[in-house]
């Protein structure tokens, strides 16, 4: 990895209900370094802690032990400085705000002047190609369009990092593939570091420069697989032998990962 690290995770553990007999180890000894400008996917079965790891990086939940830095700071400081934008599985748009006003939210919260956040929001809507829907309300948009608004919102404060927690999980296959293409185009434009949680192997391979394969119970990093397919990737990329080869590699890594810790 030539690029300097933007996120570094060292010996991070996360235990839910710690101390009780219902204690669940969600993350165990996670070590991970993410370079500036990478597109990283966290891939694994449900319950492998991939979303928890993302939420720890985003300072939405605290690790039980271990250290991590995000953009060279503690995660809390990175959140306070708005170094990252976040997209969730549901768009989570405020239904009382128009599309444009939803995209304005992060900079408005950050205390920017109105003309600044308005101009920036318009620029972001241009980026996700929803300019003509600026005045619409969320209920008037399809799920895919809502998610594009959520991406515009997450990017509107020019964050260094974009955290995405299964952002395309709620979409149908067609919309999903189209939005994957959109996302790569947007990433090509803004060049932020992306950490993308998914349980779809082909999605991870198509999007990422590196796939982090996780195993479940407890959540661990099982393998890191570089995806050296050249960008820009298009629909044609999905049909190349190299793509299939990578999908096969990742699938093998997933299946070789220890699934359950041997019970006594």
């Amino acid at each position, binding site marked *: 990895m030539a690029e300097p690290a933007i996120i570094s995770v060292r010996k991070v553990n996360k235990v839910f209900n710690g101390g009780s007999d219902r204690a669940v180890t969600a993350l165990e000894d996670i070590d991970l370094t993410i370079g500036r400008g990478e597109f990283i996917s966290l891939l694994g079965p449900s319950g492998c802690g991939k979303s928890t790891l993302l939420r720890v990086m985003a300072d939405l939940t605290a690790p039980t032990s271990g250290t991590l830095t995000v953009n060279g700071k503690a995660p809390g400081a990175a*959140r306070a400085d708005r170094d990252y934008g*976040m997209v969730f599985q549901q768009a*989570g748009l*405020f239904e*009382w705000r128009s599309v444009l006003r939803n995209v304005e939210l*992060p900079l408005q919260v950050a205390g920017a002047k109105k003309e600044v956040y308005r101009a920036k929001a318009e620029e972001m809507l241009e980026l996700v190609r929803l300019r003509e829907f600026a005045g619409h*309300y969320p*209920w008037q948009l399809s799920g895919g369009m809502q998610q594009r608004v959520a991406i515009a919102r997450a990017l509107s404060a020019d964050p260094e990092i974009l955290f995405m927690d299964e952002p395309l999980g709620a979409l149908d296959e067609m919309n999903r593939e189209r939005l994957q293409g959109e996302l790569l185009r947007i990433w090509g434009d803004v060049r932020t570091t992306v950490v993308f949680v998914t349980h779809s192997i082909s999605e991870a391979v198509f999007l990422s420069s590196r796939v982090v394969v996780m195993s479940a119970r407890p959540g661990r990093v099982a393998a890191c697989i570089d995806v050296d397919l050249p960008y820009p990737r298009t629909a044609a990329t999905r049909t190349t032998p190299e793509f299939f080869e990578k999908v096969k590699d990742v699938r093998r890594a997933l299946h070789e990962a220890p699934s359950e810790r041997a019970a006594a």
Partner: protein
Amino acid sequence: MSAPGLTGSAGTTGPAARALRLVPVALTAVVLLGVWQAAVTLFDVPAFIMPTPVRIAAAFGHDVGTIMSASLSTAKPVLLGLVMGSLGGICVALAVSRFPRLSGPVLNAAVLINCAPIVALAPIFNNWFGVTSLLSKAGVAAVMVFFPVFVNTTRGLLQIEPLHLEIMESLAARPRQVSLLLRLPNALPFLFNALKLGTTLAVIGVIVSEYFGGSTEALGVYIAYQAALPRFDYAWAGILVSGALGLGLFGAVTLLERFLMPWHESFHEESA
């Protein structure tokens, strides 16, 4: 790239269409009044049991000056009480949502006060503010309006989608920003529901408390006086005017609601 709800043809949203939607309402009213008139005439119901609409209309026409000036002096405390009760309910709800530990005791106190019947409140307020004071009538209405506004607004301020809260957290929003940008708009639909309840409660509160003294130029006094005479056609005219007052306030609140929350799902169909 489809956008559901954007493809409505202009014909379904214009003012003509709006007027058209009033037709069934008008028809229903006409049919109801017709049935009423026919039934009373046909079964020869005595006027003190149930006067015909025509008789009520005649009574209204005969006494229109008195009735209208009475309703005007009733409308004032109704409006004032509605505003006071709503503002009070909103303010206490804001305080409770900021300090949730208060919510238990405050809610209990509110229930207690709300249980006090009008027959108790009206003389007490007359005693406090003076029998002719606008405040003594408006106060009763305010107490009645306060309760639903407080309970519903509190709910709306606290019942936030966890995802929305998480988004605000990821944006490092301060508590004041969470209140202003998320909790308040989230509470608007709850508030308007309560205000709609409040309009009828305010009318009832003022009319009933008018029995307990004060200016004789008031709808409550007029209705009671005519019923005692007994001139029930005149009493009914007063009752219908007080109903119209409540309906008018209800309509005003609905208009305000449309203006303030055009995004709300209850209005989706119309723009579809």
